[in-house]
């Protein structure tokens, strides 16, 4: 291995990157944009707020108190629906996903119940909903719990069973704090895997590898310069993500020795996978397709965007077989929870995978024309 050759190769890669705006965007800006977008979306989720059209057919003080109670939780912004319209047709025409109907005689039934004239008196609130909406289930859940709370307040009864929370964490965390380590892992994976795969395929297709084969550059020089290049990109991308997360969302993760360790191991893993795929995907187009075929499932199944616990049982097992899962978990353990034991366990798994795939990748990377 010759440092002069490694340095020359590294310099060419960095110069190429600096003159290629699209590559700069996908390497540095894209993960930052993801942090901004998802951070903004899920920050709002923490103060969730829905519009709730209400058709008050009773027009009583009791129904007005109910509407007020619905608003009081801060989850719903109620709007009035004219009582003389057909609620279903109205919801369909106005493209509403959820509409609540307060029935006639609601106030009267409540009065009978409260003054003891009829202890079995009850009133049924009907909700009209659009089952094709992806968000309506969440709204209905919130509506049910809000109505339940209003119910207890109105009837003055105290529920027998209630819930109290105790977190295993020493502090409460926001979504964006969990999200940032996942995005760092995703950025390292995307850049390393597709970078190694696409660069090799492109250089092979253009005949540059054919030319390099007639120079003293060795496989070790080539691999080391590729890994160093990906490490520089990973460091730049991670720094940008952390700076933006801090500046915009005041995210202050722990940045200790675990962070570079997980990133270095992740670079070896994903550059190794990229090298393993190179003999299969020899053209730039097929390389890109092969990279995407691996990147996207890994991105969604490894807990980058949502917790693995939300997935069906068999997918959770699949997730535990993916290297990105351990990078995600390791980074979260070190950056969010300060959990050194989990971080070490994940680093060990990633390290073993890194050794295996990088050696295998190096073996299949051929310089001569017999490949």
């Amino acid at each position, binding site marked *: 291995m010759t440092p002069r050759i490694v340095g020359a190769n590294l*310099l*060419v890669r960095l110069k*190429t990157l600096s003159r290629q705006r699209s590559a700069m965007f996908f390497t540095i800006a894209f993960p930052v944009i993801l942090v901004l977008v998802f951070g903004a979306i899920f920050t709002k989720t923490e103060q969730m707020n829905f519009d709730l059209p209400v058709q008050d057919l009773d027009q009583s003080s009791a129904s007005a108190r109910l509407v007020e109670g619905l608003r009081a939780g801060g989850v719903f912004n109620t709007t009035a629906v004219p009582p003389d319209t057909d609620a279903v047709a109205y919801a369909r025409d106005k493209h509403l996903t959820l509409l609540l109907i307060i029935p006639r005689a609601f106030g009267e039934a409540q009065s009978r119940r409260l003054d003891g004239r009829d202890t079995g008196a009850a009133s049924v609130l009907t909700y009209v909903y659009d089952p094709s909406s992806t968000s309506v289930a969440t709204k209905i859940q919130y509506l049910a719990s809000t109505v339940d709370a209003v119910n207890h307040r109105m009837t003055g009864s105290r529920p027998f069973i209630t819930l109290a929370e105790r977190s295993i964490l020493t502090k409460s965390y926001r979504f964006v704090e969990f999200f940032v380590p996942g995005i760092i892992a995703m950025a390292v994976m995307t850049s390393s895997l597709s970078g190694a795969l696409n660069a090799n395929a492109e250089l092979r297709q253009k005949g*540059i590898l*054919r030319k390099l084969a007639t*120079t003293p*550059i060795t496989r070790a020089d080539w691999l080391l310069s590729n890994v160093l290049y990906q490490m520089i990109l990973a460091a730049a991308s991670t720094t940008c993500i952390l700076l933006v997360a801090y500046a915009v969302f005041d995210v202050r993760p722990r940045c200790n020795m675990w962070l570079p360790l997980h990133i270095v191991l992740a670079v070896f893993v994903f550059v190794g996978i990229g090298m393993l795929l190179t003999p299969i995907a020899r053209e730039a187009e097929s390389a890109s397709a092969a990279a995407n075929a691996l990147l996207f499932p890994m991105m969604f199944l490894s807990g980058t965007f949502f917790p693995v616990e939300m997935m069906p049982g068999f997918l959770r097992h699949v997730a535990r077989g993916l290297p990105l899962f351990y990078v995600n978990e390791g980074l979260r353990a070190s950056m969010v929870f300060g959990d050194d034991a989990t971080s070490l366990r994940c680093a060990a798994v990633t390290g073993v995978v890194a050794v295996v795939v990088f050696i295998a990748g190096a073996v299949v990377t051929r310089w001569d024309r017999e490949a």
Partner: protein
Amino acid sequence: MNNSDEHAVVVESLIKDYGSLRAVNDVSFTVARGGVFAFLGPNGAGKTTTVEIIETIRRPTSGRVRVLGMDVSRHKNEILARIGVLPQGFCSFDRITVGESIRYYSRLFRRGAADVDSLLDITELRNTRDVLFKDLSGGLKQRLGIAIALVNDPEVVFLDEPTTGLDPHARRGVWDVLRGLKRRGRTVFLTTHYMEEAELLADTVAIISKGRIVASGSPDELIDRHAPFLCLTLRRVGEGTIAVIRRMGFEPVGDARGGVSLRVKHADNVQEILRAIGTAGKPLPGLEVRRPTLEEVYLELTDGKMPDGVCVPGGAA
């Protein structure tokens, strides 16, 4: 003087098999130091495979190949340090400038960058020093490829189809660079499809067909040996004149401009034909007599053989 002093490349009984396909079949030839050697052959003849074995990037199945006295199977690194290669369809990093490309490749070979200015001068690229590779024309890209092939001051330069796909002006620009290399005493191993190029630049030529060397020697020797005739072209001749020529036992073939071409053995035959046309009372046509070209020899020796008695109309392309 032994073989390795005299010859830059020695290929002996070279065989290369790809599975059951024999791409190179018992090929032997030598390349003298300091000259231009042209390696010719149709597509799929085994040309590139042979060159890649000499360049050490393919392994021979059997046979012996020595470059600068060193065996290609045992001295790969030593050989690579002393040869320069312009691969077929040369390409470099799109977003790296001409000057940066030369510096990059020179750093792969040695400490301290090569004399970039001198390489730019040799290849007449000084004005494009700061131009990105992707913005260069085809001819300039090839010239950069040649400059890069020279970064390690090689003793042998391999140029694989350096002018393929170039327009006539760009091709001539590359020829000037090759002539410059020859003047500087480099050994140039040229692979080309253009016979005119080989005839113009090469001291020695070897023609490979179906994995075997079918002829080798200087262009003049090959023409004398394999095309011992003259090409006579008569312009604007009528049917009567053609009939006179046919009666003399020649086989004229018409061209698109109303003329005919035919092969004759001696200059005397030309006089006999003109005399016969005059005697028959036909007007004497305009004429051109020329030696066969290397292209005609090549076509004789490879599968693109022309019909008997016919010269390539108008000579080589």
